[in-house]
């Protein structure tokens, strides 16, 4: 069975960068949201 396939790693780079930036922003939001629970208020 042929197992080798050529993958153009640059094809999805733009989307991956966008995902990374969104992740970082959402991660900060998530941590702040969790940190501001009822316990601390």
């Amino acid at each position, binding site marked *: 069975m042929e*197992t080798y396939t050529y*993958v153009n*790693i640059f094809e999805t780079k733009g989307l991956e960068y966008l995902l990374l930036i969104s992740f970082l922003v959402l*991660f900060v939001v998530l941590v702040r949201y969790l940190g501001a629970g*009822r316990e601390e208020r």
Partner: protein
Amino acid sequence: MTSERIDGTSGARRLLRFLVSEMKPKGPLLTPFNLISIPVILLGIGILVVRFIYGLGSVTNLSQAYPWGLWIGFDVVTGVAFAGGAYVITFVVYVMRLEKYHPIVRATVLNGLLAYVFYAGALVLDLGRPWNVVNPIIGNSFGYNSVLFLVSWHFMLYMLTELLEFSPAVAEWLRWKKARRILSSLTLGAVIFGVTLSTLHQSGLGALFLMAKPKIHPLWYTEFIPVLFFVSSIYAGLSMIILEGTISHRVFRAQIDSKRHHKFDDMLLGLGKGAAITMFVYYFFKALVFLHDRQWNLLGDRWGAWYLVEVLGFVLVPCAMFTYAARSRRVGLLRTAAAMALVGILLNRMNISVIAFNWLSPVRYFPSWQEFVVTLTVVFTEIWVFRWIVLRMPVLREPHELPRAPELEARAAA
């Protein structure tokens, strides 16, 4: 000299008498769990006898096309992920110094130790020539290039490390004060060593599947399987602590003082926050792989639907549930989220090792009833041993028998 020998002999006799007295059952015998588990364990032992006399083919549906089945997919690959709580909680308590979680360390380490002994031990059941299990250790065909070489050494070393981490409780049970002091002083080193081992063998279990690229469905195969296995083992471990801790606190209520009961919900909520953050990171990795491998092209058929059930239903949904439950302090919802996250881990591991494995093959594998019975036997036996230890050793209760260490006395006085 003679008096020393007499002392030693009487000490050994006392220890033997103590151990014999501890063998007596504690608590009622006719409980629903006992009534269900005893027949299953006896049947499982019988099946294992047949398996070791007549071979794997006599009790399993394994074949040349499907050499790995339920015993590897559930017991080893999933069980080891569930045991991840031990390295996570020891890291949190001994390295990050979050003392709040100290009361659950021993139960978690014990659970992890038993999980490794029984689930990783179940690997022996699946070996066609089980006596060869010692080969990677004794140097007969080391196989340095094999991921299994790393996994087998790590399993062995990690079991010893967890035994060392748990050993102060054994020393307290036996009232060996000096041994307890020495063993306790080794804990931090053991924890650091154990965490290092865990990062490698949790990911190493994923690396086992890297060589099976043509066999695993492309929605589950990625060169990042090791990273995904490692990250998911963190939240699998945290979810297991939440679920197992909840059950232990109900079953062994008499062992725990009221102050600890009160603090327990706070601990669970803290663990839930950790699980939510880890699942979010895991989800990001999954999304990155999804984009990088352009997997949207594969979502159109039933494999795609099954993939979405796993990734949306049992990763994204429990992640959101953990987040909401931790924020609004809903412990019941947190427990449901933990159960769903564990189902997600089970699905993921079973998909990679069994369900989406050989996905193009016209012959499908489904475990035989004997495989299910043996799996239940492994789980029930582990619970029996866990219960035996918890009822005797200071795992959930405070060690009242021993005087406090001088530094703790000084701290308390200050």
